[in-house]
């Protein structure tokens, strides 16, 4: 991967670190869940109940969080640059369309996965101190596939789609609405897939493999999705 992809990535990470309110908004969701569960524990809820909640919440949050966070971050990728009028000097630099696209995608994907895994490991680790059997109960093979393969693959898909949409609209609200539809669509698809195939590991691997191929194709075609000129025209 070109070094310019990482130049974009580092810049986006600096921006994210310095945007405290956005960071807080992203972290709020997992923090609320942690707070709720620990409240239950502190109120001496039965251990079986904590276990049942963890069994439900860890895979759910582990799947949903990367999708929603990546959606929010990628939504702002181009439309944000355009609205803040920083896109012109950026596009006047020697960076290629593909490098710019990959840099933006990486900048949305990496923090979303990082936050998710910190939550999944931190939360599960903390609960396993209370209930040592938790890890074995919660982390079944299909949950592992869902959190560590399907979730990143679908998050990458939503990031690619939303980043392209962000490059084609000039209004943040439009990009946000589209991002919502994409994330909701993928969540509904996941529910549908679960309802149709049940907890079958084979079908999960098959569906995730198909999405992995779609991601690969999207990344390979990334330089065809937009041109500098299109980004400039909307200024």
């Amino acid at each position, binding site marked *: 991967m070109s070094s*310019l992809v990482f130049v974009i990535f*580092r810049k986006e990470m*600096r921006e994210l670190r310095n*945007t405290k309110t956005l960071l807080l908004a992203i972290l709020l969701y997992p923090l609320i869940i942690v707070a709720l569960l620990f409240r239950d524990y502190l109120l001496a809820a039965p251990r079986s109940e904590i276990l049942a909640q963890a069994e439900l919440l860890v895979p759910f949050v582990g799947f949903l969080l990367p999708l929603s966070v990546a959606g929010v971050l990628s939504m702002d990728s181009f439309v944000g640059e355009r609205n*803040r*009028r*920083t896109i012109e000097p950026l596009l006047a630099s*020697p960076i290629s369309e593909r490098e710019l696209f990959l840099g933006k995608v990486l900048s949305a994907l990496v923090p979303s996965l990082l936050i998710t895994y910190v939550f999944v490991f931190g939360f599960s680790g903390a609960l396993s101190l209370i209930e040592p059997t938790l890890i074995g109960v919660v982390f079944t093979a299909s949950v592992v596939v869902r959190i560590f393969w399907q979730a990143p693959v679908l998050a990458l898909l939503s990031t690619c789609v939303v980043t392209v949409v962000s490059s084609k609209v000039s209004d943040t609200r439009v990009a946000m609405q589209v991002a919502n539809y994409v994330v909701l669509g993928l969540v509904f698809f996941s529910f549908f897939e679960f309802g149709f195939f049940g907890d079958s590991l084979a079908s999960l691997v098959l569906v995730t493999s198909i999405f992995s191929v779609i991601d690969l194709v999207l990344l390979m075609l990334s330089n065809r999705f937009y041109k*500098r*000129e299109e980004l400039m025209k909307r200024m």
Partner: protein
Amino acid sequence: MIHTIDLEKRFPIKKKKIIAVNKVNLDIETGEIFGLLGPNGAGKTTFFRLVSCLLQPTSGTATVAGYDIVKESTNVRKRVGLLCEEPSLYEKQTIHDNLRFFGELYGLERKHIEKRISDLAGTLDFTDLLLRKPGTLSKGQRQRVSLARALLHEPEVLLLDEPTANLDPETANSVRLSIKELQKDEKRTIVVSSHNLDEVEKICGRVAIIDNGKVIRKGSVNLLRDEFSAKSVLISYVGILPDAQLALIEQVQGVQEVRNGAGRSQGFDLSVDDTKKLSHHGLEVIFASSVSDQRVEEIISEVVRVVAATRGCNIVSVTSPKKSLEEVYLKLLHDKSEDREESR
């Protein structure tokens, strides 16, 4: 350095094609400061976006530093520094981080980036602002930082889009001085777009006047002023010039009009001579447009002879007034709009 041949850019707007840049032919040489003059919407920014490879031409070609803007756009981008109309800085990052990011985008080594930032911050006087965020800076400071960003990779061509727009006169002047210094030190080709004619007149050697996407006149500032200046001579004198003498001057073949008066006239400051407490009078003699340059010299000699021969009348100076670039510019735009009205 920048050569365009019939460069054209059309934008489809509501099923119509708007021509933003219309068959522009320009040759801007290495090391010159070239001015692009025109009213808002004339096509100056679109021209900059074409030669910095942000937009692709609809037709025509252009080369920048020997590279084609369509086929070799990456090479062009590496050699061009663009100062946009808006300072366009990342508000959440410090000035240092803003500059470092662009240094990395242009592929500079980390050490070299730090050296360039330090040098440019010194030259453009913002060393103490490096750790501040753009939101805490004044407009002038932001503009200087943007100029540094455009210069970070030592581009061969610098495109400055309205560099002093929205700046107070003092800051605008300091930015102007910086631009002149940049050209002097490194022999860089600089193209400045502006509708501030005074600014262009002060810093540019040659200009192109652009209106509705078309270059309506180009040349050196002096040549344009000569071309559009009315053929006339101003004789400043002390004393009294009787009506009879004025009538004599009016009768000289080739003289169209004679204006005589004291004080401020036609842009000439006819001040009071402090030593003798005598008022300077101004005699402006305007020649017919058909008069040849050789005949002009003869008329001036005749007029000077008449004034000098008048008793009690002493000539202080004889000057040939030139139009300012602003007058040339306004005249050209006025003529152009009249042409358009007529063609309707």
